[in-house]
């Protein structure tokens, strides 16, 4: 069971368990998702794991992490509806598994403190060499990401669908904005983050309450009562369906369809939608997989996913460009069938079992466990896994039929070959 401690400037969440051979610490910084800051936050996440005053380069820091039996230190950014989150994860072997005892966890926490309060920086700016190197690295990574056509076309779909709203803002910002960031500017933004971002720290592993004192001694932030909005439902901002077709040198066309659904994570119909999505396209027993792939051999992958923080649903599939209209037609028919109630108790039972299975699995993965808990914590949802599963269990046939009446296709983005 989770225990929460109010610490100076952050909430500390302990998830004690003795089944893992390591200790996972995950620190989360939350602020408003905003086009003006998203690029800075992404670059900042890159900078935070490159060094400290004591280990003032990637090389020095890596040496230190390696000597700690390959301690992992990583950062990434994600969006949660209207919020933007910087995650800093540190994973270290539990000292029980070492030939001799070393106080690894204390050092693990100390390193988090150093990242924020003893950075590799002067009073005004990060180390210039590291700053330039990381900036270049980030730009190159984002350029490279575009070679992944699945990812590229999905990003494009969100960009078109969400133009002018937070749905259209990419979690990592755009390349041109990143190129413009100056070192001093980023450093002063770093100071703002330390002050203003809402902070949560999660610890998963074989720890007891004594760890709270270690945190007390090693890590404190300024008091901060800021609250940021996250979950919402994406609303209609266009009259007609938006259809965008882009051509590139690809052999397989990538189809992406975005839907408005008027449900979200905190909505009472959330649970019905989770079950609906599993039946419709969220698993390999789903309608879309059975009809589009198995029955019509049109694709290798097809699935629908429910973004509960933006309140939208997305379908992705890899198809032949020439099959575009047929595929869209089949997808529309399957949705219509769901809306008409053409599914049975077996479909519902299977979906519920699969949902239960995937929720229970999160208990075996420290970072998944943290992710589930964090969603609840930033939305103020008081719910245990058991309560969640009970609500899933209580979803009825009629609930599912009702919840899919309001699904509306908003945007289609198709990436296809030049010669088609």
């Amino acid at each position: 069971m989770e225990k929460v401690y109010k610490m100076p400037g952050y909430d500390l969440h302990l998830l004690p368990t003795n089944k893992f051979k390591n200790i996972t610490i995950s620190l989360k910084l939350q602020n408003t998702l905003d086009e003006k800051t998203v690029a800075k936050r992404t670059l900042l996440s890159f900078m935070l794991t490159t060094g400290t005053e004591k280990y003032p380069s990637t090389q020095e820091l890596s040496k230190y992490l390696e000597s700690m039996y390959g301690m992992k230190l990583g950062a990434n950014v994600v969006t949660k509806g209207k919020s933007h989150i910087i995650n800093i994860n540190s994973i270290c072997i539990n000292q029980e598994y070492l030939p001799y005892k070393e106080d690894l966890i204390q050092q693990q926490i100390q390193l988090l403190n150093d990242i924020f309060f003893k950075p590799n920086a002067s009073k005004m700016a990060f180390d210039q060499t590291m700053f330039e190197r990381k900036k270049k690295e980030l730009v190159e990574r984002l350029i490279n990401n575009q070679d992944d056509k699945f990812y590229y076309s999905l990003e494009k779909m969100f960009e078109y669908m969400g133009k002018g709203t937070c749905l259209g803002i990419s979690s990592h910002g755009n390349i041109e904005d990143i190129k413009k960031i100056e070192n001093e500017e980023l450093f002063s933004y770093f100071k703002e983050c330390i002050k203003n971002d809402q902070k949560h720290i999660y610890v998963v592993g074989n720890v007891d309450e004594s760890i709270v004192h270690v945190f007390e001694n090693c890590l404190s932030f300024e008091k901060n009562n800021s609250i940021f909005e996250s979950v919402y439902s994406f609303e209609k901002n266009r009259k007609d369906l938006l259809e965008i077709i882009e051509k590139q040198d690809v052999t397989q066309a990538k189809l992406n369809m975005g839907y408005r659904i008027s449900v979200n994570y905190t909505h009472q119909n959330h649970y019905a939608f989770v079950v609906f999505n599993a039946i419709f396209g969220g698993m390999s027993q789903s309608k879309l997989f059975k009809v589009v792939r198995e029955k019509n051999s049109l694709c290798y992958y097809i699935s629908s996913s429910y973004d509960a923080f933006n309140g939208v649903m997305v379908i992705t599939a890899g198809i032949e460009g020439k099959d575009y209209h047929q595929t869209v037609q089949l997808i529309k028919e399957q949705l219509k069938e769901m809306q008409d109630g053409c599914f049975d108790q077996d479909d519902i039972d299977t979906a519920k079992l699969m949902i239960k299975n995937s929720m229970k699995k999160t208990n075996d993965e420290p970072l998944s466990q943290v992710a589930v808990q964090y969603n609840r914590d930033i939305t103020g949802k008081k719910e245990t896994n058991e309560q969640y599963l009970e609500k899933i269990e209580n979803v009825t046939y009629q609930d599912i039929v009702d919840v899919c009446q309001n699904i509306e296709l908003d945007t289609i983005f198709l990436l296809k070959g030049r010669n088609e």
Partner: protein
Amino acid sequence: MEKIYYQTLKETLFHEKLENGLEVYLLPKIGFEKTYGLFSTRFGSIDTTFVPLGQKEMIKVEDGIAHFLEHKMFDMENGDAADEFAKLGASSNAFTSSSRTAYLFSTTTNENDCVELLLDFVQSLNITDESVEKEKGIICQEIKMYDDDPDWRVYFGAIANLYHKHPVKIDIAGTCETVNNTYKDMLELCYQTFYHPHNMMLFVVGNINPEELIGVIKENQNKKHFLSENVIQRLKIEEPTSVAVKEQINTMQVEMNKLIVSIKINEILDDPQDKIKRELALNLLFDLCFSKSSSLYNEWLEKGYINETFSASFTQERDYAFILMGGDQDDYELLQKTIFNFIDHVQDLEIAEDDFERIKRKTIGNFINSYNSPESIANTFSRYYFEGICSFDLVDYVSKMTLADINEVKRYFSKEYASSYIVKKDK
């Protein structure tokens, strides 16, 4: 049932070889909700020329057939295996590599039923001409998905360049053409030959009671009849030592040029101990040279020879071995020059004792960490098992490695056996 305790990992592995030849390994993970079962056969994409069970003549089957068979195994007499798993609350999947095919499930309930279902669906083949036809379009889309992935193209191209004859040069799924030429009788022949219990291994890890589960497995197997086992004869590939293609450039729509330099290793080791020692030594060497803590790596990065996409790896399977080094770089000639220069001078590279000890610590930590994931435990076990190595021993092997072991493997770097594959922008 044999019971083996691994002190360093604090794990107890249970093992039994069944009467029909099937090897069973069970690993209980206390406190875990998840159970993961993996049923593997020593049959992969490189097994395309062999003597079918009960016959005398060597035959050649279509490329990609192991993968095709993997797709069709899920067809059961009364439906689809994935659906049956779903009814039990489990998810299922499968994958094919060059030397093996593996079927898996993952569940948090009905563990024993899931193990039985795994055995049952893999130990019977239910295909018709129609069902085989239908799968062709799906597999073709899978192939095309990879065709559009430039990282896969450069990776696979670099391997293919090395070989004149060895079937590892052919894509695991084959081509749309070979897929379209694959028929029911050929799939059945492969199935009968390679899915015999003595060619297979079952690994189950997670929330299980080994004593109870082995009983379930034995009862299940005793009910089934298998043809008597015989040794599978595969064509011994007479692969020339030279590389087939020295350099190849492929144009694609990419944001940055990509290069991989591959090195063919002709020395194929038979002894599993030698094999694992060589693999660990090369991996440690790559870590010493190209991890973020290395001076050489940082020098290359600062001079702009490489970027963070650069990586190096060593692969060895049944009868082939190679090294890959490369990454994204618009000036791929500069990157190529840098790698060639490394190959030429690796013998002179001095490794400090403390760097070596630190990298060993990291490797040990990584191995211990990997024992938190049932999937990773099972997949690693299966990958090494068919090479004759028990993956639970890897941590101890690493602990015993010396600097001399690292210096010994430097001799594998040779420009004579190197090839380059480039994916170039079409702008």
